[in-house]
Structure formats: C-alpha cells, structure tokens
C-alpha cells in the first residue's frame, strides 16, 4: 500500500510537470477563443519560444535573458500572425498552418547556424530554471515527492490562471474582450477598437506560448531538439476548448492532458507497447472533447442548438 501511494505521488508530480507547459499555451488559446480567434499557430509560437530560450541561454547563460528572449520572440511571431489574421483578414487556419511551417523551418535553420547541427542540442553549460526548494517538506516524504523538481515558472502557471480569470471576468478590458468574442460588430458599435484588441490578445497568447516553450526546454530537461513541441501547441488548443475557454476550467483540462502524457511516459517501462502509450494523449484528447461536447449539447435548451 505504501509503495502504491508513493507511485501515485510520482504520477502526480510528473502530471504537474507535464501539464504546466500546456497550461500556459492553453491559457493563450482560451483568451484567443474569447476574442473569436482560432489560433492554430500556437504550436509555432511555442516552438519559437522554446528555441529562443535555449539560444539566449547558450549565449548569455542567464535565466532572465532566456525567459525574456522566449517571450519576445514568440510575441513577434504572434504579432505577425495577428496582423495577417485580423488586419489582412487571412483565413485563421491558413495563417496558423503557415506560421507553424515557417517556425518549424526557421528554428531548424537557425539551429544549424547557431549549434552547427540539427537533431538535438544539449550542453552542461546551459542553465535551467531555478527549482523550488522543497526541503522544508522532508518531514512528509509523500508531499515532498509530489512537489519535487518543480520550477517557479510551473508555480506561476497556476497563479497566472487565477489572475487571468480575474482579468477576464472582473476588469473592463476583460469585459470588452468577451464582448468582441460574442459579437465583434456590436462591440465595435460601442466604440471598442476590436481589431486592436484581437491583435493584442494574439500577441499576449504569444507571450504565454513563449513561457510554455521556455518551460519545455529549460524546466525538467534543459535542451532543444528539432520540433520539440511535438504537437503540444495543438493539444493546448484542445485543452483551451475543453476548459470552455475559462482560465480555471483550463487548469482542469490541462491537468487531464498532463496526466495522459505522464501515463504515457510511465507505461513506457511496462509490458504495454511504448508506441501505443505515446498515442494515448492524442486519442484521449479526442475522446475527452467528444464527451465534453455531448455534455454541452445536452445542457443546451432544445431548439436553440
């Protein structure tokens, strides 16, 4: 029984670490959903942040500069995406697909210029994000296991979700954002600059993706590999939808995907084929979304749907 509890604590810990990069990006996706933007380019923005963090890390060895580089580069990509989606009225899916293939090419291209090879880059000179010291919990080994090896950025993801909840539902700007999402024309007639608000939201979602990307390359492991995000941006979009674009709901949905990913990692050492467990998070996404939508449809009054 004791071993089982310990095992659960390990699963809990790995779920936490898997979910936070997704949570950052999913919050960005949720905000975009609120202003009526279907932002599939989050995958590319996350990848850009993940890459820039390691490049800045490589040149300066400073955590702060790496974080800043990740945020700024992702915001730049997001700005381009936002302008093409909102100002040039490009189809969102097309802009997103282009951004993703552009960033995927660009990061691999630059990777070869900076690190002299593609594949993966690891070095002992790279610094990691500072970890939260949980020594004070040494009296409670279970709790210590549950919370070990977390960075401050992991913790910040949860704080941010709460802040964004307050922002979205308790501030004027948040109210305006939601009104743009509900009806852009009506919002504009009230004097809201909807285009600007939409672009700013996309840029902010870029900032969040940058943080998520940075957490991915400087959190648990410190390295960059070609296309390291591996669809996490897409999963985060699903999490954003599943969490009903509500920051607190997004915590729950991100936790679900974190659990699916950590289960996939855990099961790799078991008798079940590791390839099948790798498919698990993606299948779980589809199943969870289907169940969620069924519940939504049931709740909706008849005739309105």
């Amino acid at each position, binding site marked *: 029984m004791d071993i089982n509890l310990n095992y659960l604590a390990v699963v809990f810990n790995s779920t936490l670490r898997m979910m936070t990069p997704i949570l950052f990006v999913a919050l960005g996706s949720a905000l975009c959903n609120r202003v009526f933007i*279907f932002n599939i380019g989050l995958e590319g923005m996350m990848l850009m942040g993940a890459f820039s963090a390691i490049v800045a890390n490589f040149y300066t060895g400073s955590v702060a500069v790496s974080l800043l580089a990740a945020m700024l580069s992702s915001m730049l990509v997001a700005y381009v995406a936002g302008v093409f989606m909102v100002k040039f009225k490009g189809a969102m899916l*097309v802009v997103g697909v282009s951004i993703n293939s552009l960033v995927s090419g660009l990061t691999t291209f630059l990777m070869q210029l900076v690190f002299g090879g593609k594949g993966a880059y690891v070095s002992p000179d790279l610094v990691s994000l500072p970890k939260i010291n949980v020594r004070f919990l040494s009296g409670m080994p279970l709790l210590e296991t549950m919370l070990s090896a977390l960075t401050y950025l992991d913790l910040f993801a949860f704080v941010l979700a709460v802040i964004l909840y307050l922002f979205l539902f308790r501030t004027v700007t948040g109210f305006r954002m939601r009104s743009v999402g509900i009806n852009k024309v009506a919002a504009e007639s009230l004097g809201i600059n909807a285009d600007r608000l939409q672009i700013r939201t996309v840029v902010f979602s870029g900032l969040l993706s940058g943080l998520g990307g940075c957490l991915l390359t400087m959190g648990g492991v410190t390295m960059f590999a070609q296309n390291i995000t591996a669809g996490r941006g897409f999963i985060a979009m699903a999490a954003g939808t599943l969490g009903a674009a509500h920051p607190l709901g997004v915590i729950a949905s991100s936790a679900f995907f974190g659990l699916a990913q950590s289960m996939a990692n855990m099961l790799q050492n078991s008798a079940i084929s590791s390839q099948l467990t790798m498919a698990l998070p993606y299948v779980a996404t589809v199943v969870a979304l289907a169940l969620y939508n069924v519940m939504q449809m049931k709740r909706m009054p008849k005739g309105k749907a």
Partner: protein
Amino acid sequence: MMRSKLKRLGERLKQPAIAIFFALLVGAAAILVTGENPLTVYAAMAKGAFGSTYYLLTTLTRATPIIICGLGAAVAWSSNYMGIGGEGQMIVGGFVSAILALNVPGPTWFKIICSVVGALAAGGLYSALSAWLLEKFKMSLAISTLMFNYAAQYITMHFTANVFLDTTGDAKMTQTLMLVEELRLPKIVETYSLHWGFVIAVLLVAAIWFVMNRTSFGYESKMSGYNVDFCDYGGISSRKVMYGMLTLSGVICALAGVLEVYGVQYRYVHNTYVSASYAWVGLNAALISDYNPVGILLTSILLAGIQTGGAAISRATSVPLEISSIIQGCITLFISAKIAFKFRGRLLRRPRPYGTQAAEAEEGEA
C-alpha cells in the same frame, strides 16, 4: 473572349506571383544571414531542382505525393471542410497497402487489388471518422484531424515495430519487409527514380478537375464551399457533401501513401511521410493555387523543386535545407492575405472554416 480569358488567368496568377516574390525576398534575407550570396544560391537551387534530367525527375518523384495530397486537401477545403489530416491519411494508406501486399495470399493481380482497395478504403473510413465526430459531437475538424495524425503515426509504428518488423536486414529502421519485384511500380525511365505513380497523379488531376467542374457532386460541394447554410436551403444535403468530400479526401491522400509504397520505398517505413511533410506541402500547394487542380499540379512541382533544390544547395553551401520550409511558409502566409483581398470584391461572403471553433461560436451566436 480569348482576351478576357487571358486576363482572368493573369488576374489569377498575379497574387501567387506576388506572394512567391516576397517569400523569395524573405528567403534571400535568411540566406544573407548564412553569409552566402542569395542570387548564386537561388541559381544553384534552380539548377538542383530542374537543371538536369536527374534533378528534374527527382523533383517530379517528390512532387507525386505532394500533388495527390494537394488534391485530397483541395476537395475537402473547397467544400468548406477544412481538415488537416492528410498526413495521417497518407500514413494509413501506405501502411495498410504494404501490410496487405505482403500478407494476402494468391496471384499478383489479386494481391494488388486487395492491397490498393484495402488501403484506399482504410484511408476513406479513417477520414470519415472525423466527419462523424463533427456531425455527432460537433468536434472541430481541425483538432480531430490533427490529433488523429499523431495517433495514426504511433499506432502504425506500434504494428510495424512489434508485428511486421523487417528483421532480415541489419538496418535499425522501423520498417516492413520489401515487396517482391512483380508488385513494384515500374520506373518511367530506367535508372531514374520517377515511377508511373506520377502519371497516375496527373490523371488524378484531370479526374478531380472533371468531378469538381462537370458533375453535380462537384457543383454541390462548390455550393457548400460558398455557404453551408445556403446549400441546405437550396436543397443540397450538406451532410452528404461533408461525408462525401471528407471520405474522398481521405481516399485520395491514402493513394499518395500507396504510391510511395509501390513506387519509391517498396515497403512501409515509419516516419518517412512525416519527415518529408508531403501532406503539409500538399495542403500548401492547394492553398496557393486556390484549390484549382491544374494549379495544384504546377505548384506542387514548384514546391518539390524548392525542396530538392534546397537539398542540393545544403550539400554544396552552408545554407541549411530548411530554407525551403521558410520560403514555403512565407508563400502561404502571404497568399492568405490575398484570400481576404479577393473575397472583399465578391458578393458571396466566404464563410469561415466550418468545423472550427470560430465557426461554431458564430453559429451559436447567430
């Protein structure tokens, strides 16, 4: 008459030409960063893509799956069902065809029929699953197809690695056994890589053009592309169009996988379609040419040329191969601005992607 046709053609080509020009400018900037001269690099790229029989035929070989995936994407996207599942569909097609060709007993012709029909049916069903999820669960087509891409990749990898693995060679690749000689598609010109699959792709271009422009099915899908609600109002079942077009799109993309197995690798090799990103390039080709089949044929050859040319210069210079993805991403990005530009001039409002959240939110609000 002739003149207005030419003018229309010029009008059509103007936007892609501008987009390609600006994308090449961005590419030139990237080349400058590496310290090379963009003009000489582009010249070397053109030579490496179309400069000799060998290069030209290599480019056409590479273009084959891109053309087919482009057609697959075009039939779905032009009818407003914007799935991004080409990659998974191609994987399913390639995997199933290789497994059936290797394991079905009987004469050669029977093996081929079983394998091809089985693979196409699998691709179609697999794609129809996303249609079903959209219809029954209102699930965003973009998300379901994306997730299925990864699922298909890992599930086929599981079977390739654990059930059908080729253990005869010493290569550490996750791949099946090779097809016997009689099953393989012959080369068009001996010793060059180009196989008869390219001709099949060109015939398919003609077939899709015919379906889209000369049949009632194509007309209905076009109406659905303009406006899904209007389509139902006008007595066209949008449900039928959705299942029809998404299944067709899955069948077509599966064919791309089948031809790779029969014409290029002669086996299913894990990760080859993903790393070459045939389906994504095909989708880009469809977007650049505004879903026009002949346009897809030409654009795919161009994009394949940028890739083979990119590979050639990455061997000769310090410019990495990924210059081709950068140029390609820029082309579609710049083209997307065109889409709005053109539609503003039209009376019919191009509806938002059906099956995306944005569209659903809009419907919910309406």
